[in-house]
């Protein structure tokens, strides 16, 4: 067993874990942070993406012990004081999710991407989230949502963006 001290969504945890424990399994099984999910076993799908010290990582590709002394943010810790993060809000407004299984990872990847590229083109967004697979949406509304969120974050407006038009 190995000891790990990690802050997850603002709460500090001290645990002993099997050294082989992946961060995603630690989050789900030890901490009950089941908002973060496992979609594959080859680090392709990105469903398990969380922020490690503010940067996106696939939590299936990180050992829990590698997160020792660090700060993890999951989709459960993104909203503040009951207000959705602009990316969450934009995913809702733009219908950027259907079954929702890829959504936690997609949102966290988008949050990290927008920290690096606050004013992205559609093409940059597509490149930026290519490590996250979605089977439902065809990505079109995800790209729109991330673009909307970027605009909202640039204007510092975390309130609900104006209702968006639907082209159907």
């Amino acid at each position, binding site marked *: 067993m190995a000891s790990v001290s990690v802050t997850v969504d603002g709460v500090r945890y001290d645990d002993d874990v*099997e050294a082989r424990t992946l961060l995603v399994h630690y989050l*789900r*099984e030890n901490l009950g*942070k*089941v*908002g*973060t*999910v*496992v*979609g*594959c*076993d*080859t680090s*392709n*799908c990105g*469903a398990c993406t969380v922020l490690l010290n503010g940067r996106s990582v696939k939590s299936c590709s990180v050992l829990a012990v590698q997160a020792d002394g660090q700060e993890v943010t*999951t*989709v*459960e810790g*993104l*909203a503040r004081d009951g207000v*959705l993060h602009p990316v*969450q809000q934009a*995913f*809702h*407004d733009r*219908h950027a*999710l*259907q*079954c*929702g*299984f*890829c*959504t*936690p990872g997609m*949102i966290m990847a988008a949050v990290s991407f927008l920290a690096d590229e606050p004013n992205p083109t*559609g093409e940059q*967004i*597509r*490149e930026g*989230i*290519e*490590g*996250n*697979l*979605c*089977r*439902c*949406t*065809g*990505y*079109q*509304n*995800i*790209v729109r949502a991330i673009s909307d969120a970027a605009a909202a974050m640039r204007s510092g407006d975390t309130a609900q963006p104006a209702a968006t038009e*639907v*082209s*159907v």
Partner: protein
Amino acid sequence: MTVTDERPAEVGAPRRRKEDARLITGRTNWTDNIVLPGMHYMAVLRSPVAHARISHIDVSAARSRSGVVDAFTGADIADFQGSLPCAWPVTPDMVHPNRPPLAVDEVRHVGEPVAVVIARSRNAAVDALEAIDVDYEDLPVVLDMEAALAEGADLVHSDKGTNKSYTWIFESGAAGTGASTDEAFAQAEVVVKRRYKQQRLIPSFMEPRSVVVDPTGDVITVWSSTQIPHITRFLMSLLTGTPEHKVRIIAPDVGGGFGGKIGVTAEEMLSFFAARRLGKPVKYTETRSDSLVSAHHGRDQIQDIEIAAKRDGTVLGLRVNLLANMGAYLGLVAPGVPLLGAFMYNAIYKFPAYRFECSGVFTNTTITDAYRGAGRPEATYAIERLMDELAVELGLDPMEVRRRNWIRHEEFPFTTVAGLTYDSGNYEAATDKAMALFGYDALRAEQASRRASGDQVQLGLGISTYTEMCGLAPSRILGALSYGAGGWEHAAVRMLPTGKVEVVTGSSAHGQGHETAWSQIVADQLGVAFEDIEVLHGDTRTSVKGLDTYGSRSLAVGGIALYQACQKVIENAKPVAAHMLECDVNDVEFSNGSFRVRGTPGEGKTLGDCALAVFAAHNLPDGIEPNLDAEAVYDPTNFSFPHGTHLCAVEIDTETGVTKIRKYVAVDDVGRVVNPLIVEGQIHGGVVQGIAQALFEEAVYDGSGNLLTGSFVDYTLPSAADLVEMTTDRTESPAPGHPLGVKGVGEAGAIASTPAVVNAIVDALRPRGVNDVEMPCTPERVWRAANLSGGAQ
């Protein structure tokens, strides 16, 4: 309560989804989240070989591992494990081999379960698999369908004497739905014949399948990541001998399905047996690698298709001969999947004669079964590819050939050569809209100039004018096709005393947005607020009956049941309202959420007022049951027939073979739209799944029957970076057969898009002598087609 002002219609509004609140914040309830006191975990040992006799198997070492509580083999449960079900015996003489959840003497595909371990932790269960000792004696491996049908072929099931499961034939002359196909071909001025290959695909829902079985209560409760909780309850009861009322199935949040979660699976049954044996809750969650090799695959057909026409482009007849790979056994509805396509090869065209023949073939591969569209994408692909080939043969524009043959809007309802009556549609309107959005003529001009200049990048234009049959399905037709169940759907509406509403639906959503769309329908019908409606589904204890979700049926069938249940609630409330309004029941009218005395303006009584009145029941008219709640079951009288025109422009770099989608326009007519946001999302996702078949995905086996695409490294789902923004629009031809006018949208995109893309690729390369590129059209295949002599690769 007071009567509210006229509220805007909910149906047609782009309501943001109720489901999202939990999904974007991680407050979800996936099956794998469930943890119960004393819960054990199951791991499954799978066959590493495609066909072998199990000469020796021993789980004793695994059983003695730390943390392990049980381990068993097929032989240990052989006397009661039975066979996983196939519910669609398409012919009376269909060869239907047993499919035991755990192989007993013989394995017939890589990934077939051979033993399980149950332990107190997931890790302990998985670790102990390596202690299981199995000896396999190789048997001949059967992979190629045509070889499998040859005289003297090796057999997947040696006791059956054949690799053919069934042959199913339809002929319009014999059926009385059209002319004799042979005579039609005898009159042909032009015959075009092609062979198309529908590669094997893997549905690839994002949530791996998971099941938890809890045997500790008075009933056995099963949580499963399934599309079909009600069908699973019925079948699991029969298969395990557990009385049906003692089995409860819950499909909690389910992360996608696309047909891939239609089935009663080996893992569900094994978890059930393990839980019952141990008296403890048991959980099994597959890894993605498990999933790709063991959850059912889709498509995998060889299509020989032949069209007879006159020189002016008028079609005379169509012949289709299909081989459908069933895999090693028969999946729940697998034999019927090609039949769902059988009625669609004639598509939107007025064929006078049609013959269809399909044989289901066993091979040593993972089973196939329904995958988004199930039979209809295959049919649409073949006919839409062939219409392009006919156009080339005749020197006509491909859209012109279609126009000369399609059913005109004034000809609906139209009974086709396959015997279906298409109720409505307007192919002209959808096509005109799509052509305008696409800029067809300008793109053709650019294509000509690129061809003339010998540009390295060539442009191709692809058309798909599709229809589909969905809203599965009229029970009588399913019966006539020997399917094992009906096609009705159930809904219930419960009026709570505070005026809130609970809606129960028998279809089981896994991304479709039922909670939102159903709320919109009920809000309009009952005049209650969208927010005051709760939609319940996916639990056989609350949703007591239903036939679940597949075949674009939830709205087109379940939505009508819901509408009817709403009408019954209004009827139930009428005498109560009349009593409160002190008028005769015949003088009461209901509109905009209120009962009023006919012709009298001002305050009336809402359904909520009536609900409170029957809750108290202090002052009801004599003989009135204190109840407003109602349920309805709707059995459709016909399928529904969405249609549309999809246009795709591709740029092909002839030196690298890379295909880039330049423009994609989809104009779909799915009848009346309840929520345009949800409809657009369904089209986006469907179109991309179809594009993925055209360009990216294929399940590949090596010569020994190993699945080479056994992980997401090799089974290449497209990412956002592989795709471009598409343009969507719609026309609206309401379904005339029922009051909502809806048609279903779940499969349309996936049915339409594949031929649009491949037609565009072939069109780009046509001057180089190319008349086909096999799917998926990878850069290598496209490059070979573009650059090697003869064109067709």
